[in-house]
């Protein structure tokens, strides 16, 4: 029966191409969203996790602000005393502590002025931290050898895109009216916080900003083989003794992962809800189309019944039609979804976020499930009008204008 009905249904779908394609389009949008989320979800998760874990599995970052929202602390501009942070080096298992600071400043290069995030730390330890734990390499030039010569290291993006001309090693830039020589430029990391900044020493940063002996955050390196949890507890205890910054957060690799996970699951949840809503919209679309197209074909239904079609035959014709519309929508949705995910990952790549999407990580089982769902959605949405059509008396249907 299916074999003989199939061509009939195809003809009937192709007889009203615009209506059919619009219905299919409605489903495509819903499925596309689901597929984009499915194909990028893992990539996004890994990227965020990777970004947060980039500082290494034996490191702790200390940030001001409550644990529930550490970012607020940084923006709030609370600063630790440098001494309190350096005292942490006395804790057993701590290899060294690098206090860090951030601040925006105007930077001038060849008469062009731009606001740039300055990233300040002592070169002595920070060079080590950067080189060994984050995989940062200098592309050109070298790290400054002392803390007082006016030298700066530029991030990858800062070098290339901030100013109209590419900045070269040895060039002179002016940060807040003080001349600096570019001593090195960094290779690409893929993170805004590192790629789009200018690194200078803490001493010079304080001189520029006028702030005394504060530190926005700190990087703690743990001795290898020491349990990070215990060290973290001791750091927490010792830091709670100081009174400058009440609330602070210790960002351990594990916590960073958890944070990324929870942020991502919220994002994922929202996207899935959006996708489900659009799927429902698609289903209503099929229902609407099937309803009007059944109404439109009432006369033909009468004819088909008059020449011997049973109720079941009419029902089958319409269910095959709506099921097919569902499945075609599903297939196109998956194809366009993968395509869109790929394009999004290309765009993200050009912004330095890599590895969002890979064909290898596509979930083909998920796609099969999607196809089954769209098929069933199609059949169910078609069932109501189709049943109505099938039950009509042929004479009544033939009279329909």
């Amino acid at each position, binding site marked *: 029966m299916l074999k003989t009905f199939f061509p009939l249904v195809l*003809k009937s779908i192709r007889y009203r191409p615009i209506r059919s394609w619009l219905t299919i389009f409605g489903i495509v949008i819903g499925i596309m969203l689901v597929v984009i989320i499915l194909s990028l979800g893992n990539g996004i998760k890994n990227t965020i996790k990777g970004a947060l874990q980039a500082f290494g599995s034996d490191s702790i970052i200390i940030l001001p602000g409550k644990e529930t929202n550490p970012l607020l602390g940084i923006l709030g501009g609370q600063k630790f005393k440098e001494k309190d942070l350096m005292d942490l080096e006395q804790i057993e298992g701590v290899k060294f502590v690098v206090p860090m600071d951030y601040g925006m400043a105007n930077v001038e290069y060849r008469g062009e002025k731009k606001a740039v995030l300055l990233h300040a730390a002592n070169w002595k330890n920070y060079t080590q931290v950067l080189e060994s734990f984050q995989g940062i390499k200098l592309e050109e030039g070298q790290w400054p050898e002392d803390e007082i010569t006016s030298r700066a290291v530029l991030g990858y993006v800062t070098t290339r895109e901030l100013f109209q001309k590419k900045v070269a090693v040895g060039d002179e830039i002016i940060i807040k009216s003080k001349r600096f020589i570019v001593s090195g430029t960094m290779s690409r990391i893929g993170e805004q916080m590192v790629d789009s900044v200018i690194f200078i020493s803490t001493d010079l940063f304080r001189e520029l900003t006028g702030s005394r002996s504060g530190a926005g955050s700190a990087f703690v390196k743990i001795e290898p083989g020491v349990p990070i949890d215990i060290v973290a507890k001791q750091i927490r205890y010792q830091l709670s003794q100081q009174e400058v910054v009440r609330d602070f957060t210790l960002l351990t690799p594990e916590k960073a992962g958890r944070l990324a996970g929870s942020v991502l699951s919220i994002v994922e949840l929202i996207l899935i809800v959006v996708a489900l809503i659009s799927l429902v919209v698609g289903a209503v679309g099929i229902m609407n189309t099937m309803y009007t197209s059944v109404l439109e074909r009432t006369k033909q239904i009468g004819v088909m019944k*008059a*020449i*011997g079609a049973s109720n079941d035959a009419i029902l089958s014709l319409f269910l095959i039609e709506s099921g097919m519309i569902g499945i075609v929508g599903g297939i196109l949705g998956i194809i366009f979804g993968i395509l869109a995910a790929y394009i999004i990952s290309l765009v993200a790549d050009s912004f330095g976020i890599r590895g969002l999407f890979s064909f290898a990580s596509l979930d083909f089982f998920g796609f099969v499930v999607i196809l089954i769902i769209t098929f069933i959605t199609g059949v169910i949405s078609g069932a109501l009008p189709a049943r109505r059509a099938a*039950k009509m008396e042929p004479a009544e249907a033939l009279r329909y204008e």
Partner: protein
Amino acid sequence: MGKPSRLPPTNQSHDMLKERAQSKIDLVCGMDLSEYADVAETIRQSGTFYFCGNECESRFKKNPDRFQGEPLIKLNNVQKFFQLGKIETKVLKGLDLHIWEGDFVAIIGPSGSGKSTALNMIGLLDRPTSGRIYLRGKDVSMLRDDERAELRSKTFGFVFQQYHLIPWLTALQNVTLPLVFSGKKIDTNALNADFENMGLKDRAHHRPFELSGGEQQRTALLRAFANDPAIILADEPTGNLDSATGNKILGILMDLNKDRKKTLVVVTHDAGIAEKADQIIAFKDGHLVRDHHAYKKTYTE
């Protein structure tokens, strides 16, 4: 099922005998003459027979045994009401009608007299509000939908005034449609031969909107014949065609009636068609009218 069931066959024939004994039924056309006083009567060995008019009487006399048997189709007190909003329109008001196997029957009558509705009842396209419809002595008025679909598929072939071809299918596909629904094998060679005989050889793969009215109606004829039905029902088959084309269509239908003994029931306004029929049935206001042949001119254009 769950529908009011058919009467058991024994009761049914018993009822019929009683009915026949009490009322005056014209066996030829099926008209109930009980309410009429001046009815033509013929008394024979097998009983007294009543006739609505001369034509029915002369048909009976030519072949009395035939008309004492079971008609192919019998409508018994069939009523059909349509509900249009709050207004109920009574289209058929207790219709009695006999159609005999192999006859070419022309149904005539003014617009709105219930001709087409009666044809729909005969062809099981609609359910009567009340009354019985018998096909070869079997009550088919209360059959389930699927049983009626099967009868429509195998026993009836329909031809409509507006051709009613499926617009998205080619002529050939339209003709194969009844075969698809009856689950029969599609013999492409035979179908091609049929198209050639019908003079539609080059049109088989065209869609309805590419065909002339005559070509569409010829395709519709092929579709009606596809399952080789015993009864062809045509609702004003030439109504939308010029007279030459209409005559051609009618010729095909009549050949089928004469050569292959198919029963042909045609609803028509055309005096020419009515003239050629074996039996004329005249409708007025949801009933048969007496002396059908007298209305041949009145109810046709």
